[in-house]
């Protein structure tokens, strides 16, 4: 036997195709970017997913994050207006050649299955309402595309390096009765004000998520149900956390959504998730939803989990099976070497054996009815916060004599940068992401990179020189600090100074222009002698000569007149200060 297998292996491995299906897929929702004012108005608006951070669209970080976790199926749901640009981008960056395993599917929001009841109704609702459909309805509409459990992601996420999607999924995988695993994060100081303040209740022991309530519109008194407190005596309430909009959801949640009327469905974050969380501890709701969320005989591990010694008998749905003494227990099983006749189909026998373990004696009905109290599913939470600066150095490090090493450690810690989760769903968040990117350019560890960057720049420069044979693209008389990034095809004029800037592709920086802490997208023109500080200029922007601009954000195609002096403005094309 073994030899034959060995022999086979030599040929068999190569032709073995990979296991095709996976337990999770990613659903990325692309929104309109309501909170990104100057970027989302005017002509040629770029989708929120394509906001460049270090000249790379933000959605790349999300997709990379997903693919790094080993997931392959990605469904991106895009508003129709952004479909083409995003589809182009994704097919270009995630082609079969570079990512042979990834299956990225891009759908327009309108493409999904039609709402089953009252199409016109919803149409009307859409027209009468905000004109934008809630995320919950979108997800429900695409439920036929979502075949497995899934993780719902925003398109504007920049996960910290300490938080891998794998760790989130593993948390979900490792708790069998979890319907939802959601991620909360501590936002950075600068972003805090922009985020919606929510009150979050969670149980740190079991890491259960119990309540999400927006602070806005809350009265002075906070009402908590006794049931909640009695079932979770150690719950903690906090307002420091924000919702990262990362939800790992069981597929059956979609079934629950489809029992709702579509006009009742709105946002996932504001509506569905808080509902679901409530159902996790409110017995009435929970029990009503349990048959939908926990369909019987769905989980192949149910019988195994019922026997697990770490399964809590009072709170786990599986433990109802555990005593499982059936009236047939006096039947003596004959050790059968050959499984029964072929007439019994495989599934039949499985059901049989499952039933055997699920029959509950009349005597145990009392117990079973107590057990019915068990909701059987819950919502978990994962909190991510930047690790505090490592404390090891403050501790007495064993023996003396290694002060040198300690000093080194401290030196490293001085540049320690807390690694926050940041979302580019507001201007502050976008700024923060860019700042973070610039910092990665300037950190000591990045010094080498910078060198290579510079040399790269020079190479680009040289190659451009060679190619055009005329003017050098980046003038040697210009000053570019090492913590700046310059996209390809950009021309920098003589005596221009660029510090801590991210400059997109094919920009044109005029002579003697001075840029500090700016983010320029592609095709931006800065004319001679302009001075720009702390400003974001979207694609095709134009800054006239000798203008002085500080702390501004300009939408796509905005043109500042020569000599304009602007400070703290947010303007879109065609607007005047």
């Amino acid at each position, binding site marked *: 036997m073994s030899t034959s297998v060995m022999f*086979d292996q030599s040929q*068999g491995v190569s032709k*073995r*195709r*990979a*296991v095709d299906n*996976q*337990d999770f897929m990613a659903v990325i929702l692309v929104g309109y970017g309501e909170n990104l004012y100057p970027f989302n108005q005017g002509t040629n608006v770029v989708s929120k997913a394509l906001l460049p951070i270090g000249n790379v669209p933000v959605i790349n970080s999300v997709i990379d994050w997903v693919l790094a976790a*080993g997931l392959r199926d990605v469904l991106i749901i895009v508003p129709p207006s952004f479909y083409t640009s995003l589809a182009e981008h994704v097919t270009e960056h995630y082609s079969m050649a570079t990512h042979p*395993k990834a299956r990225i599917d891009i759908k327009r929001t309108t493409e999904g299955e039609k709402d089953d009841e009252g199409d016109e109704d919803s149409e009307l609702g859409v027209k009468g309402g905000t004109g934008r459909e809630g995320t919950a309805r979108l997800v429900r509409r695409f439920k036929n595309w979502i075949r497995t459990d899934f993780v719902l992601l925003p398109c504007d996420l920049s996960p910290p390096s*300490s938080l891998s999607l*794998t*760790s989130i999924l*593993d948390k979900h*995988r*490792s708790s*069998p009765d979890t319907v939802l695993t959601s991620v909360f994060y501590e936002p950075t100081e600068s972003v805090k004000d922009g985020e919606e303040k929510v009150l979050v209740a969670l149980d*740190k*022991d079991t890491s259960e998520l119990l309540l999400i309530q927006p602070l806005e519109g809350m009265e002075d008194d906070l009402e908590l149900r006794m049931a909640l407190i009695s079932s979770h005596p150690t719950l903690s309430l906090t307002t420091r956390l924000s919702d990262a909009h990362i939800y790992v959801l069981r597929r059956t949640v979609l079934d629950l959504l489809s029992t709702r009327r579509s006009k009742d469905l709105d946002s996932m974050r504001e509506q569905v998730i808080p509902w679901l969380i409530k159902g996790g501890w409110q017995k009435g709701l929970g029990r009503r939803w349990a048959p939908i969320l926990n369909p019987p005989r769905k989980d*192949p*591990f149910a019988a*195994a*989990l*019922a*026997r*697990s*010694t*770490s*399964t809590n008998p*009072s709170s786990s749905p599986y433990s109802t099976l*555990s*005593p*499982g*003494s059936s009236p047939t*227990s006096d039947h003596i*099983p004959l*050790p059968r*070497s050959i*499984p*029964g006749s*072929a007439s019994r*189909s*495989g599934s039949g*026998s*499985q059901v049989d*054996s499952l039933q*055997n373990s699920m029959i509950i004696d009349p005597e*145990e009905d009392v117990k079973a009815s107590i057990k019915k109290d068990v909701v059987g599913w819950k919502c978990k939470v994962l909190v*991510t*916060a930047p690790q505090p600066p*490592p404390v*090891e150095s403050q501790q*007495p*490090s*064993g*023996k003396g*004599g*290694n002060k040198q*090493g*300690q000093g080194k450690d401290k030196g490293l810690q001085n540049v320690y940068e807390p690694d926050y989760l940041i979302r580019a769903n507001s201007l502050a968040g976008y700024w923060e992401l860019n700042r973070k990117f610039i910092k990665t350019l300037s950190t000591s560890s990045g010094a080498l990179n910078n060198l290579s960057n510079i040399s790269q720049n020079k190479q680009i420069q040289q190659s451009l020189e060679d190619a055009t044979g005329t003017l050098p693209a980046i003038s040697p008389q210009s000053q570019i600090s090492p913590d700046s990034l310059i996209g390809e095809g950009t021309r920098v004029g003589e005596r221009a100074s660029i510090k801590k800037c991210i400059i997109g592709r094919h920009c044109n920086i005029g002579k003697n222009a001075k840029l500090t802490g700016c983010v320029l997208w592609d095709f931006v023109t800065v004319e001679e002698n302009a001075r720009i500080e702390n400003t974001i200029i979207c694609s095709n922007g134009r800054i006239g000569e000798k203008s002085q601009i500080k702390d501004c954000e300009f939408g796509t195609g905005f043109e500042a007149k020569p000599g304009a002096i602007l400070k703290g403005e947010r303007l879109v094309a065609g607007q005047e200060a």
Partner: protein
Amino acid sequence: MVAEPITESSKPPTQGKQPKQPKPQNPKPEKGGGEKVKSAKDLKKEKRAAAVAARGGENAGAGHEGGRPTLSVTNTGAAGESRQASFAPSGSASASAGGPGPSKPQRPAHFSEPSGLSLSNIQQNLFFSHLPHQDFPDTSAALINGKLHPLIVRLGVLMSSGQLRGANARTMGMMSAFREVIRDYECPDQAVLWKDLPIYLSPMIAWLEGCRPKGVGGGNAIRWLKSEINRLGEQGDRSEAEQKDYLVEAIGLYLRDRIEFADKVIADNAKEKIRNGDTVVTYARSSVVERVLLEAHRDMKVSDPEAGFKVVVVDSRPLLEGRQSLEALSSAGIPCTYILLPLLSSILPQADLVLLGGSALHSDGALYSRSGTAIVSMLAKEHRVPVVACVETYKFGEKVVLDGVATNELGSVDNLLSIPNNLSFGIKPNDLSSTTGGVGKHNLTPLHLVYDVTPPSLITAVCTEIGFIPPSSVPTVLGKSSSVV
């Protein structure tokens, strides 16, 4: 195992000398005395020590040759420090990694370590370094690799996270997972199912083994499955669907006969030993024992509502599985007492029976079970309380295991140093430095061995689905069942 490292020992001579220190130190003066015979033995010893050291040095990496404790304090500290710095993200790893281990022997080369250095570094000292440990598996790599069925990945996470614990639960989970895998399996065009399927399954089996060793019961089940697949080859022409159906059904029958019905019969047998007014002692949690007690209680209540028995649930840290057992039993109306292991000797004089579960029963009759079981049975023997182990026959192993050192598992040490309800929260690793308050991190080795071995002399009887047998009858049963299986 020995031959390979010796060749390596010649390569790094400085490392080779490390652990010689403890052993040859004594003989050296003697050698001066001129004892020729002994020095030859010493030479051998030295060689072996060098081999161990070579293995250790390999693991410690190039930078840590100086990690010898007595040689220079500074060096040890620096090595510890630097290692700590490099492992900082993995949290608990750093805490006692820099321990003054003279050797850091590596696990046998065939053991594929999925990821992470945390536990291996803490628990690697001379005696227990060979043991597999629970480590969180790298699921992303497993998924990217594409050789694993997602259900297997999920099972691995469940097992390594401790959600699925207990031999019955794990074996059942594994077999039901393979049942689903076989259902989804499609045989390639040119291949023969019975030849191709084992190749298809083997990376999954290996991965699960890396998540948590499957134990004797699981090993038996896998061996049975393989023989069953093999048998397909002998049975000639059948369509692929038929063959798959056959396997799926066979797995279902195996689970039913060897675990579910076995448990029922064990419960029927064992409950006869519980009489009205008895006090039954159990340790930790076993699905079989729990079932025995529940059924005994129910039957007793049916025949006489006044009758009943008491249960003493004995438990110990860090797993505290007894709590769940307690909850299940007391919610069924059984009067229970809950104690931790140290109190056992005071409770035993009132006890009438000790019921134990087990992970395996080795062929010499030794019970391989949750660590602490041996103490329970030893004390029970001292107090002349009969000890009954409830073990299904599929858990009978052909090996002979003399102690809990050669074969065991290293458990998670996360909760070992913290009080139970002060668990870590969020994704931050529960780093030991914080829980110990930074005290003595260099000389602290939290050790958690999951199992221990109870010698057959301490076990009065083994309750199996074929009846009560003495522990000495295991080989007989094995001989019989092997023909059946």
